[in-house]
């Protein structure tokens, strides 16, 4: 099963990289872009019997390692493959 984990800085945390990217986009003329928040994206191949089990494992992994709960939050997507 494939899990996708999106790690982003919490809204209260200043993101200097995102701000710089926003400014760069503005200098390219993309004035419609109001704000950028930069994050991290992980794809995990997980050996699990169900989507719930995969989500449990990945959520624990995200809590312990993939994200730092002091500054980051995360969102998990599980992609179940349909057996042929």
């Amino acid at each position, binding site marked *: 099963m494939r899990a996708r984990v999106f790690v982003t*800085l919490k809204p209260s945390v200043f993101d*200097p990289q995102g701000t710089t990217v926003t400014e760069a986009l503005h200098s390219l003329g993309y004035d419609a872009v109001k704000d950028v928040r930069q994050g991290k994206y992980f794809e995990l191949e997980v050996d699990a019997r169900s989507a719930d089990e995969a989500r449990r494992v990945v959520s624990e992994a995200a809590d312990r390692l*993939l994200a*730092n709960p*002091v500054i980051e939050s995360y969102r998990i997507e599980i992609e179940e493959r349909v057996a042929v």
Partner: protein
Amino acid sequence: MKFAVVVFPGSNCDHDAYHVATDVLGAEAAFVWHKDTSLGGADVVVLPGGFAHGDYLRTGAIARFSPVMNEVRRFAMAGGPVIGICNGFQVLTESGLLPGAMLRNTSLQYQCEYVHVKVEQIDTPFTVACTKGQVLRIPIAHGEGNYYAEPEVLARLQRNRQIVFRYTNAAGEVTPEANPNGSLDNIAGLCNETRNVVGLMPHPERACELSLGSSDGRVLFESVMKAVSEGAFAPART
């Protein structure tokens, strides 16, 4: 009097710390590999600067799970003096031995320069030989030293006097211009609630001999030698 200098893959200030402990201050020191499960009976633990595990994922995030960190945690919990310098400070925050986290410098640049830091607290093992308000000129060299903590955590740090070092100008004034990385409250270093674990972004170990430009960092190492020799902050042996 023995220092343990922990070596992670990617540590690069380990030899500087070892040199200061042995050649400059005449103490004993030993390198402890990150996979070791003993600190070799050391009185003080140094988590040195560098790029442990290549700074992959987040600075200090992988080092936190190195086997030696179980021993460092036990030593710290028993009251032993632990100092994390630069990347070592990042390892301490990731490990939860110190509160908060590091963000990218607001400049987005790797800042490598001399700064001034004021010693705000002198009741930690690494500052007992300092005078309160003493201004030290020591270098920084980091890309992620922008200290962040949630407002209630910051308030607790202030209330408990855990902010040990702050970036200032040469006169010891805390100003926005003196802040090299965007750290909250100009925080350059802090201690835990029991005061035996100290972390700081500047590099005192690179400023212990005048021939290197400054010897202001030496007082941190002299402090811990004084603290240990006087029996303060000795880890409870089990």
